């Protein structure tokens, strides 16, 4: 059966059946997806420093990439935790206008990702597990950020997390926006809070590109499968953490407790294997990411 270029009977049948399916599905956007988008972006949703405050009283923030700047859109530092140490790194949004500006709306520049890498290497040196909290609309799109290598900063952040010998746990706590979120989320365990989202592109931008109409964002949110339930089904996240009734923004302490328990469970599990084995399993996991077909298999 020839490969290129391909119009085959089997494909045609599949295509028609897809078209039929399409008529039945999704013409009404799934309100539930958009609700999650709104909850994930809720202005009162707990941010990284809120979780740190409730989870790790002795937190010591460490700043700077030792290269260019300290980026307040990513925070990180050491925390004492059950008689041991953990490195906590996360995106940080602001809550009022001055702090939002200061935190650049949680959109990191290259120096943010490079700070994260520096702290992860420090953790690795001293066998300190790494917890990342993910909550960003995406990496900052600006001229100077591009000039300082935004793409490279994200790539090296991914590479840094791929290399780590220590256990790594990532939790999407709010908006998991594109490469800027993934840069802190290549981990042994990736979890999502129930009302968080994780997406390759914002629904608004997706709608603007594909529908040429950003008011189709709700439709795009449904199509993108960005809710925690979607991502669990796609096996991109290992676990979805239920939030306190009404959402994390109604009970910071409760949300932090849930997160802390999940962290403890994860670490307990991850620390039963050797660093080498852990790294191997990490690679196997990411190697499996994706869905493809080989010729001879039908479309579904």
């Amino acid at each position, binding site marked *: 059966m020839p490969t*290129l270029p391909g119009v085959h009977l089997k494909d045609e049948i599949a295509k028609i059946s897809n078209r039929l399916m399409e008529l039945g599905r999704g013409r009404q956007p799934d309100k539930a997806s958009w609700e999650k988008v709104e909850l994930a972006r809720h202005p009162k949703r707990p941010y990284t420093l809120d979780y740190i405050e409730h989870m790790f009283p002795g937190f010591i923030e460490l700043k700077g990439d030792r290269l260019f700047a300290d980026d307040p859109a990513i925070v990180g530092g050491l925390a004492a935790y059950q008689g041991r140490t953990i490195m906590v790194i996360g995106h940080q949004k602001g809550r009022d206008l001055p702090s939002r500006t200061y935190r650049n709306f949680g959109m990191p520049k290259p120096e943010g990702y490079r700070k994260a890498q520096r702290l992860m290497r420090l953790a690795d040196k001293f066998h300190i597990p790494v917890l990342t909290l993910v909550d960003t609309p995406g990496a900052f799109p600006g001229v100077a950020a591009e000039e300082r290598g935004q793409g490279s900063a994200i790539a090296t952040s991914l590479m840094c997390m791929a290399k780590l010998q220590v256990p790594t746990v990532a939790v999407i706590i709010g908006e998991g926006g594109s490469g800027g979120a993934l840069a802190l989320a290549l981990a042994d365990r990736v979890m999502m809070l129930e009302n968080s989202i994780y997406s390759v592109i914002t629904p608004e931008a997706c709608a603007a590109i594909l529908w040429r109409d950003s008011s189709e964002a709700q439709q795009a949110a449904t199509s993108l499968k960005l809710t925690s339930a979607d991502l669990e089904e796609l096996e991109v996240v290992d676990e979805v953490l239920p939030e306190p009734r009404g959402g994390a923004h109604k009970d910071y302490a409760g949300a932090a407790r849930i997160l802390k328990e999940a962290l403890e469970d994860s670490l307990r599990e991850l620390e039963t294997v050797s660093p080498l084995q852990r790294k191997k399993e990490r690679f196997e996991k990411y190697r499996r990411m994706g869905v493809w077909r080989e010729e001879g298999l039908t479309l579904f």
Partner: protein
Amino acid sequence: MANKVSVDISHRGPNGSIKGGESCPSCKELLTSEELESNLRVCHHCGHHLRVSARQRVAQLADEGTWNELAPHLRSADPLEFFDVRLYGDRIDEAESETGLNEAIVTGTARIHKMDVVLAVMEFGFMGGSMGSVVGEKFWRAAEAAIENRYPLLVFSASGGARMQEGILSLLQMAKTTCAVELLGEARIPFVSVLTHPTTGGVLASFATLADVIVAEPGSLLCFSGPRVIEQTIKEKLPEDFGRAESNMAHGQVDIIIPRNELKDRLVQILGMLEGGVACALEPLWEEKARPAGRGGAFAEALDRVKAIANAPWRAFKGRDREDQ
């Protein structure tokens, strides 16, 4: 694993418009197909580097008859049952018939000036060179082939970013390809990345900038966020040279810009020099058992890992009707 496929550059350009000629996007002069082909699709009036399709690129680089395509049967599924104004499957079909390829990357083994390499070339004409599951998987397999054969890996990228229609799975290809690069690194396999116009988004922010040496073609647009997105953010028009290869090099992001007519020679030289170091280290002068070095310990280890992973049960896609692998 490999499958002989002859290189055919006659019938299609990157945007299907090669018949007769094209006008140069930079100086607007009319260029005949013959002129373009003989000059590697570089405008002989102004030096502008016109886009090259993946198959043309392979033809420009690979020694005659040495190209063996890898994983030629991999094609996209529709894991999200994605719907927008068109079906994802229809978009794929159209891209296939426009490019004559079945994904936005072709990978294979080849010889370049008699040097064995694994060569991976992205095709911008295939849905904007977007990276979905198949691009990630083909990149992984190319890296595997490089490690198994001990060939260097040479990758040409051209991409608009992620394949939105595969949603989060598309994003995760950044993580997947990064892990593949880390395996290459542990095996000390030289990896040279050539950034061509345009390389943006998730491809720039993963394997394309993780290479040992980063080469760019003159004038290529290389950025993480696209110019339009940035213009919306800063509410200003960007300068003409924003994100161009030359600006990237001045800002320390690119090792070297090589004009297309020197590309083949220079790439072989660079790969050879990286190989040269390793080759020497293979037969060290010292006797003492040192820490794992070169293709000794680290390589064996990386290879073991890759093999262990290759034996792992692949994740099934929904609805498949028989076992792959």
